[in-house]
């Protein structure tokens, strides 16, 4: 099944991924950068250009397939995960990317989102999280911060939001990464990692909606402060962050704690080393849940645990049954069992 091919055979560039359609997102929308990142990432994966399928639901981000020159499906609200699952099961040599937003994936499509993850179907999900409904012009979403004033919460929302990564872990997710729209190199790198990962990979992109929720991630993305407010995790590397690279995370009892290297006798050796491949998700969950102002927000590949995929399991089971069954054709099925002849 897996053919080894040199990358040259399939080479294509970011330019080949530009579709003829005019990109109609608002000027300054984070979506432009995410599109750009995926166009940078896809040629690095060594996949055939014509084997890529991009599937989306409904929302601003879901216009994505029209703007990228691959096979594309722009479908209905919330259902992209189910449609992408069908594409992959039916034709597993295709590389399937699902584009979705916080409303599409976590509200109307919440059920398909968790079940795709549970089944570990080999698709890549880019979750644009701008904490607002943009295409319907500014209603609160399942990730909107509690208390926020929106068109449907004029006195502030009274609902607790989801943290998407927590949901991924709750659904037994094997791959979760997080990035911000204005960090193009990191976003591109994570898309490449997600593309390589066998199984459902979720990349949450903290994305800014300039019109309806401008600055919702500003605390995290602030140019001056971002190094203190984000920690970019890398597998096998110590969890160090900060402008001066002097801050780190340690485990104290069952809690994470931010420490400063050089203070209170802390040395680099005391800092936790990130293990994205650890099957036990507890530490990953703690990293996903870190919030400002007490903690930096975790970026990078937080969890990446290989497991069998739904599409592989299905094809293996079919091959196994085929090998053992006397029924090889539909005619065999018809004549199998209680059949009688009228002469």
């Amino acid at each position, binding site marked *: 099944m897996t053919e080894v091919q040199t990358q040259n055979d399939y080479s294509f560039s970011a330019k080949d991924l530009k579709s003829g359609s005019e990109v109609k997102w608002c000027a300054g929308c984070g979506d432009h950068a995410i599109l750009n990142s995926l166009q940078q990432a896809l040629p690095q994966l060594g996949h055939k250009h014509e084997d890529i399928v991009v599937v989306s639901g409904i929302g601003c981000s879901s216009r994505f397939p029209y703007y990228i020159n691959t096979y594309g499906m*722009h479908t209905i609200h919330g*259902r992209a995960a189910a*449609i992408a699952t069908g594409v992959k099961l*039916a*034709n597993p040599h295709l590389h399937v990317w699902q584009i979705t937003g916080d409303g599409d994936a976590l509200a109307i499509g919440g059920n398909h989102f968790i079940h795709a993850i549970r089944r570990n179907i080999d698709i890549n999900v880019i979750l644009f999280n701008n904490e607002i409904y943009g295409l319907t012009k500014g209603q609160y979403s399942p990730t909107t911060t509690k208390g926020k004033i929106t068109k449907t919460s004029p006195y502030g929302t009274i609902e607790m939001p989801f943290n998407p990564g927590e949901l991924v872990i709750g659904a037994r997710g094997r791959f979760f990464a997080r990035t911000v729209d204005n960090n193009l190199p990191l976003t591109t790198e994570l898309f490449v990692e997600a593309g390589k990962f066998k199984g459902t990979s979720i990349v949450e992109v903290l994305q800014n909606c300039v019109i309806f929720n401008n600055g919702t991630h500003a605390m995290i993305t602030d140019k001056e402060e971002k190094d203190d407010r984000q920690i970019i995790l890398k597998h096998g590397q110590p969890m160090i962050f900060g402008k001066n690279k002097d801050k780190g995370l340690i485990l104290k009892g069952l809690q994470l704690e931010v420490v400063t290297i050089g203070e209170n006798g802390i040395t680099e050796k005391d800092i936790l080393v990130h293990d994205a491949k650890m099957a036990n998700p507890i530490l990953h969950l703690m990293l996903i849940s870190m919030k400002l102002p007490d903690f930096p927000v975790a970026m990078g590949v937080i969890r990446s645990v290989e497991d069998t995929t739904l599409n592989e399991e*299905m094809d293996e089971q079919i091959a196994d049954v085929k090998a053992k069954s006397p029924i090889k*054709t*539909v005619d065999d*099925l018809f004549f199998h069992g209680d*059949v009688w002849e009228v002469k």
Partner: protein
Amino acid sequence: MNVKTVVKHLNKVTIRFSGDSGDGMQLSGKLFSDASALFGNNISTFPDFPSEIRAPQGTIAGVSGFQVHFGNTEINTPGDYADVLVSMNPAALKSNLKWLKKGGTIIIDIDSFEDKNLLKAGYTSNPLEDGSLESYEIIAAPITTQTQELLKDSGLDFKSILKTKNMFALGLTFFMFNRPLESTEHFFEKKFKDKPTIIEANKKVLRGGYYYAENVNAIEPHIIDPAKIEKGFYRTVNGNVATAWGLLAAAENAKLQLFLGSYPITPASEILQELSKQKSLGAHVIQCEDEIAGICTAIGASFAGNLAATSTSGPGLSLKSEAIGLAVMMELPIVIVDVQRSGPSTGLPTKTEQGDLLQTLYGRNGESPCIVMAVTTSAGCFDAAYMAAKLSLEHMTPVILLTDGYIANGSQPWKIQKTSELPAITTRRVIGKLGNNTAFLRNEDSLARNWVIPGQKELMFRIGGLEKDSNTGAASHDPENHQRMCKLREEKVQRVANFIPDLEVIGEQSGDVLVVGWGSTYGHLLSVVEKLCAGGGKIGLAQFTYIKPLPKNTADVFSRFKRIVVCELNLGQFASYLRTSLQQFKYEQFNKIQGLPFTEEELKKHFMNILEAK
């Protein structure tokens, strides 16, 4: 006990097995049907069970029934009323007596007619003693105690012994109608392969019932000869299995992988179960998280080049509406099987009805046309599912195939058709770019677009739920283009009429009354129209399999009759559709909505009145 000839005519007989949900009446009925089919009789069956899996034992709510009609003439229905009623307890007798012909035979387990059970069934006096059953022949067999006696040395526990008493009842009926025991014994050997004690126990009780009937001389055996049946190989299928096999055959002939995305729902689950079994034929089946995912995975699979299907019942069809609209807009082939049940909402989930027709035609936002078909018989589900797949693939449009609980669960002998004898399927699949060939190029005759499967460098395209330009396929908000596309999608479906068979009339080809039906009412309507024709009535039957589009000769057929009576198990949905489609005719209605099929008796009475009134 009277010893009499209990069955008056021997061309055909109807038996109804009834008992508590846990008494195994469905199995008794199935085994009797199988033995009869193997013996060479025509059969038609009708399982009638409650929606509760195990309602309180001994109560009316917990009664489960199975009716089988068998004989050597044509058998189109499971029979209105039974000649023989088997009732394992008082509740079964009480709730099923209305289905027994006057003067028919009742076989009961006398052991169960105790005060406690009589009370549970709501009897205030014992019907065996109060004279209320005087007009029937009663065979009171001690089924429970005989079964216990037969198995006292079997080593089985009390509960397991009682479980086999349905085989004693079956044995009684086998003697009564001279059925061979071998096929049923063979069934035990297969079903309980690793449990020799259970095999022996079932065989012993089956034979016990058979010999009991012989020994006590309570029942006179009857001979019902095999029917004159067209030569060929046969097997028994029910509607759901036949539907699943029709899809498998279509996939094989179209050289495509079959994909089913589905969610369990009564009475459609068996399609999902059957295709889950057929992995050796490469069927890719996923039991989804919900009905919506069922059709959405299928839409994804269709885009990726599979013959894709989803199976459901009415409430599930409601949930799938938006996604069907997407498949209409994307012009993707997909088969949606709706095994109708009584609605609205949860309704009578195990009972049959034809209540979803207007939902299939109009139940989506926007102008959203697709092909709608309806199956007429259990065995006919095979051909209909095959044709649904063929039309979907050749015309690049969703097809909704309507069956219902009655034909889905009912079984019939099916003459096996080899896949090579079925009509060829020519998909719209395009491989390689030829000139200006794109995913959006249409066939001039059918207006179906090309089916481009991902993996082809030259043909990459984007498609979605947004309106598309009629030439380029790009998303378009142009007002005139939208009108053009809405008309085009409707016209594409209407042109399917050029590819389907004409409507046939059974009985008189012109005359006083045209009986119009669709789907599963076929058997009942046919039996009645044939009888009335034989009696000189100028009456014909037009049974529709193709609903949208209607066959091309429909207006011609309608114009040949003075009166048109549309018969449906709803409040008049097809009649309403015909009134808008062919407005020049006047339509009368005959409707029933009780969760049950028509009876021949009520149909006959109605048409007799019409014929006499002219």
